[in-house]
């Protein structure tokens, strides 16, 4: 187990260096000069542009800029955006919003998804099962943008149940509607996955044996079926949490939530190398970390998977 974790950490370090360099070069080679575009259709004076280019080292070759950036990382300096604000501060200010949104959506997925999946798995072919099937197909086929705007107009504007935008009303009011919209997508997968898994497990030999032994159905389902069918769902849920923490650019924009996704989108638009690399690297680390956690959880839940 220790060797397994150690190996993953080394892999992580290699991926980290590779990815930061690649992203840095990619942002650098984006067409268009970010400083010239800073003022939009009111271009900045030439002298100001030259000064800003020197200030942000944009007049240097890309490898030197990258080395500077990595050097800064070791002293905890994540660089600065083109308006002089430290990237570290900007990210720190935005993580709480994204984490709150992600965990709210995730909690909805876990609770509703597992329960619905379990019910439709136990009563496959029943009314709940059919309703869930239709519902999940619908939810996954509507683009998140349409769903978000519609939910905003119906529940925010017409019914007035939720605020339309912003975080000023705090959790849970401000986060509930966007979280539900995001959760609907993961929810569909969780439910289907859970349902299939439950159906499979119910048909397995050990369940038949337990039934034959006369164990009450409650116990069979609650302990044995649950534990055996939740493993693949848990894998999905962990990966999905990583995805949710990446920020959902569209939802954050529609509901005016200043999260990490919105920051990344803005930074790509303005070609702010340090911000893009900082956010992207953090996201990659989250993905890598969740994948390690998934492997560990799986090996704990299912002794057949061993990491020697």
């Amino acid at each position: 187990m220790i060797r397994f974790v150690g190996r993953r950490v080394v892999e992580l370090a290699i991926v980290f260096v590779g990815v930061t360099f690649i992203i840095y070069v990619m942002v650098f080679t984006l067409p268009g000069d970010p400083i010239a575009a800073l003022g939009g259709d009111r271009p900045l004076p030439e002298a100001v542009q030259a000064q800003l280019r020197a200030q942000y080292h944009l007049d240097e070759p890309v490898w030197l800029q990258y080395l500077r950036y990595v050097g800064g990382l070791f002293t905890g300096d994540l660089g600065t955006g083109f308006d002089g604000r430290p990237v570290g501060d900007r990210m720190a200010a935005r993580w709480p919003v994204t984490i709150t949104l992600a965990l709210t959506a995730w909690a909805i997925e876990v609770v509703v998804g597992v329960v619905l999946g379990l019910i439709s798995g136990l009563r496959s072919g029943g009314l709940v099962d059919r309703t869930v099937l239709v519902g999940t197909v619908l939810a996954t086929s509507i683009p998140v943008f349409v769903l978000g705007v519609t939910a905003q107009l119906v529940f925010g504007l017409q019914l007035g149940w939720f605020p339309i935008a912003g975080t000023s009303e705090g959790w849970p009011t401000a986060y509930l509607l966007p979280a539900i919209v995001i959760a609907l997508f993961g929810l569909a997968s969780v439910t289907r996955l859970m349902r299939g898994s439950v159906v499979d497990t119910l048909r397995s030999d050990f369940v038949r044996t337990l039934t034959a032994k006369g164990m009450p159905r409650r116990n069979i389902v609650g302990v044995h079926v649950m534990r055996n069918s939740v493993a693949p769902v848990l894998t999905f849920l962990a990966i999905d949490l990583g995805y949710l923490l990446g920020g959902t650019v569209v939802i954050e924009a529609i509901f005016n939530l200043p999260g990490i996704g919105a920051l990344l989108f803005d930074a790509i638009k303005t070609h702010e190398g340090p911000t893009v690399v900082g956010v992207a690297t953090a996201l990659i680390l989250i993905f890598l970390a969740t994948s390690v956690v998934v492997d560990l959880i799986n090996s704990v839940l299912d002794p057949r998977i061993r990491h020697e």
Partner: protein
Amino acid sequence: MRRNQRTAAASILLVTALGLTACATGGSDTADDGTRAITFGVTDPGTLTPGRQLVAYDFNMAVWSPLSFLESDGTLNYVQAESIESDDNITWTITLKDGWTFHDGTPVTAQSYVDSWNTVAYGPNAFENSGQVANIVGYTDLNPAEGEPSITEMSGLTVVDDLTFTVELIGPDSQFPLQVSQAQTAMYPMPESAFDDLDAYNTHPIGNGPFELEGDYVENETLVVTAYDDFAGDAPTTDQISFVPYTDDTTAYTDVQAGNLDVASVPASRLPQAGDDFGDNFYSFEAPGISYLGLPLWDERYQDVRVRQAISMAIDRETINDVIYGGAYTPATAFTPAIEPGTPEDICGEFCEYDPDAAKDLLDEAGGFEGSMEISFPGGGGLDDFYNAIANNLRQNLGVDATAVPSADWAEFSDNRTAGNIDGPFFSRWGALYPSQQATLRPFFVENGGCANCIPWYDADVKAAIDAADAADTGDGSAYADVQELILEEFPAPPLFFETYSYVTSDRISDLVTSPVGNPRLTNVVLAGE
């Protein structure tokens, strides 16, 4: 199962904890306690310092008072200035009103202005709006082509006494009093404390205006300004303005519809429906902005003036305006926006009128148009419908193989445009910051005048005519008529629309007033029931 229950419980606890933290930092902005407070939807400004801000005009106009203020009826009132005078239009003497203070209590003096303008101009500070002081003698010394400047002050600024200073310009310019009006934020004064730590000042700017900032600026959090008790000018009609940042302007629009926000600007995509959605609460303010269809004059096919005129006559401005902008704009009939005094309206005449048959004849007369025509515009800004409509017009009316192609983003477009890597018509617009024909003609038609490569057509005669008009104008803008005649002769690019800036308000506001710069005048908002 038990393990999973525990996991679920733990995650719910975590969610709750995070939610509580979010609650603590949030808080409601609505005031129901009788305070006359309004909320205004903005883009997160990033920079607030007047010499640096790029998207914080409304905040700046609330926190600072300008030297002069141009009213909607065209009169120029003095606010912080007592007088702005000159005998030769080169050396201007500015006298300040006595008794005005910054929000930190220190007096506004001639020295405040001189120090501020020097700070704006000083090259190494890289103030984004330093172009606004570029006509003062000594600006180039502070911005040498190579290396650091050896001095920190412009020689053209001289303090005479506590309340008087003189400004020497590089050439005669009758429009100077307008250049220190409300939207020229780089001309605002900063208190002495600002110069020690410009970064700290950007976080907590201190102005001389009707409102002062509460607390510090934090990215993506609401900026609250309250009426400054010791303000020496006219008291504002509201006690408090909250500038609420929105990442998406359509969300702000929807929030005004729901009554959660009082004022928001209208995104282009909502212009056609804003009148229906808001009725009397929809405001379209005439603004000093104008759009052109830039033409690649380096391409031989566009050399004949008749080709350029034909393109202009083939564009159905009325229909495009009605369908795409809900009639909010005005089809252009001159080379500067109509709101700029003295603009000879209708000088463009038949060439700005939709006449597909005459356009086709004119093009044939000029020898037709070979090959295809690709219209370039910056993508991602909601301009697609607009340029597709123009391409359709040109295709149907002139038989030219015209298409509209967006760039990936603004930076790519701006790069291609500046480098001349564009072989078709292109996006070209300018929003002036003070309504004088000078403020539109210079950016478009003088090299390094501001709108780099907007058209770009730089003619020595036009430059000379603008210089002459700058020197000679008596305030009514009539001196610029000659310039417009010269431009008409050459017709370098078709003017398209005089722009308006549009806003919607909640029912809490009964009247939103404006000034000739097109922004709402936040000091004079009329609340419902007052």
